[in-house]
């Protein structure tokens, strides 16, 4: 077995023996003396460049697998796939797999890529099936029409004597309903016939989120001046009136946040080292304002990548910035164990928690949650909007809450907060 990342010679020797090529023959093929190849095979000579490429070609090996500078991209991808699927695999095992079975390795890597793509699609479609109002309406119409056809056809095929007038009436109803069903089914197919890899932006919120994501949630032009928001919107892909309205609100909030908390005022505190509360007090800004700034400013400025979610008292997600490992549903019905829901019960209190997201590629996250009470009208109860800012937690977490994205795609087996069964069979 090959051992050690710097034992190129041993790998060459093993492969040569495996292919039953004599040392002198291989030396001749690559144009060196057998004694020099012998030194190489015993790692007493370092090689690189053209000789390395020639040896790799002669042995039908990926040149990366022979290089000295650590793992090949294929080995790294195999390790990544193993980690993702919770398979114990040492680097040397991955290297051996890639060396001995290059075609199988490529197949595994492709398979892993496909699995992840399909899982992302399942998550997105699951969200859509649960919460997309247009899809829900369309499905409701299809089921209603199917019910009418089933009930009517059962009467006609029941074998009982039916008045000819009723027979004609039911036949006409079935004919009408079947036409309607065909149209509804076609409309449904058209609606679901989205791009192979991407679930298209359907609702105004999705349009706005795609727009924010394309801009990495950061609008440099708003950091120092006040541009015309209409110009920004006209240059965006947002077409729906509702989408433009929501995007305008988001940009106006961004502008207000950037004015209240310019990067220059924050620069002395970046990368963020202190607690959120102290920082908000120091800059005399609101906690949600500081959260949004940290979530929207580029990582190279704030020092780490922040994710954020904001929701109203109904649990509807108003803003969402995802980061790797913390999957969130596109619409409502988020995991009830998220600390943001505790914040909703305790307005104006900043909560700090550590959570473990149990989804695939999940991780441990440090979270700050805060619920603001916005007084729109005097004499009426304030409107509650909660926010949760989070980032990967790199230290030991003795007591962390286990959370998921949403029940439908969460496999925490014994969760007291579960609202509906998961489509996943077992705990990930």
């Amino acid at each position, binding site marked *: 077995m090959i051992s050690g990342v710097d034992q190129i010679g041993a790998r060459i020797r093993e492969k040569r023996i495996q292919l039953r090529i004599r040392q002198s023959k291989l030396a001749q093929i690559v144009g060196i003396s057998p004694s020099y190849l012998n030194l190489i095979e015993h790692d007493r000579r370092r090689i690189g460049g053209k000789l390395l490429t020639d040896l790799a070609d002669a042995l039908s090996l990926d040149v990366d697998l022979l290089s000295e500078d650590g793992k090949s991209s294929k080995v790294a991808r195999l390790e990544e796939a193993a980690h993702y699927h919770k398979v114990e695999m040492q680097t040397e095992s991955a290297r051996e797999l890639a060396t001995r079975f290059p075609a199988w390795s490529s197949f595994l890597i492709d398979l892993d890529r496909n699995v992840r793509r399909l899982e992302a699609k399942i998550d997105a479609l699951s969200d859509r099936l649960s919460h997309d109002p247009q899809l829900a309406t369309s499905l409701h119409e299809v089921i209603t029409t*199917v019910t009418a056809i*089933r*009930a009517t056809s*059962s009467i006609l095929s029941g074998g009982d004597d039916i008045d000819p007038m009723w027979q004609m009436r039911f036949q006409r109803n079935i004919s009408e309903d079947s036409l309607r069903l065909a149209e509804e089914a076609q409309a449904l197919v058209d609606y679901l016939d989205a791009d192979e890899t991407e679930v298209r932006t359907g609702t105004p919120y999705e349009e706005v989120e795609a727009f924010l994501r394309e801009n990495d949630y950061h609008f440099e032009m708003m950091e120092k001046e006040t541009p015309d928001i209409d110009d920004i919107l006209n240059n965006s892909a947002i077409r729906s009136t509702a989408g433009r309205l929501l995007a305008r609100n988001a940009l106006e909030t961004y502008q207000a946040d950037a004015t209240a908390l310019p990067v220059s005022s924050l620069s002395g505190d970046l990368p963020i080292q202190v607690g959120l509360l102290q920082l908000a007090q120091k800059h005399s800004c609101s906690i949600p304002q500081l959260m949004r700034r940290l979530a929207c400013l580029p990582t190279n400025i704030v020092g780490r990548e922040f994710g954020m979610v904001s929701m109203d008292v109904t649990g509807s997600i108003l803003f969402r910035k995802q980061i790797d490992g913390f999957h969130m549903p596109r619409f409502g019905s988020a995991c009830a164990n998220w600390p943001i829901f505790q914040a909703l019960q305790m307005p104006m209190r900043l909560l700090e928690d550590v959570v473990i997201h149990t989804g695939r590629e999940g991780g441990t996250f440090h979270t700050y949650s805060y619920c603001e009470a916005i007084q729109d009208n005097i004499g009426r109860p304030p409107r509650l909007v909660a926010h949760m800012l989070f980032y990967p937690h790199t230290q030991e977490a003795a007591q962390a809450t286990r959370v998921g994205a949403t029940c439908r795609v969460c496999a925490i087996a014994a969760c007291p907060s579960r609202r509906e*069964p998961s489509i996943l069979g077992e705990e990930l």
Partner: protein
Amino acid sequence: MAKTVLLIEDEVNIIEALSFILSRNGWDVVTHSNGHDANEVITRREPDLVVLDVMLPGKSGFDILRDLRRDPRHQNRPVLMLTARGQSKDRDMAEQLGVSKFMTKPFSNTEVLDAVNELLS
């Protein structure tokens, strides 16, 4: 005297099919196709059974059921609820509101007849 079934449903062809099979099985069938005045119709007609769709124009079947159960005259009136939404949360909500029986579309005529028989027996 035949018992009366009030069918509250907005899909015309479902109304026709269900009215036909219920009438053929000996019940008097009265139909109504919107939600906003459904509670008044129930109070006026005093049916022995209400067959109630969930998705109705004007007022949802859940709201109609909620108002019905708050009214002492209708607290025990049998209600068979029909819905195209088979999610467990809908069933849970219907049960919390006091539904007598809950059926998911598409149902068979036999299932409807069995349910009506059970509720009127």
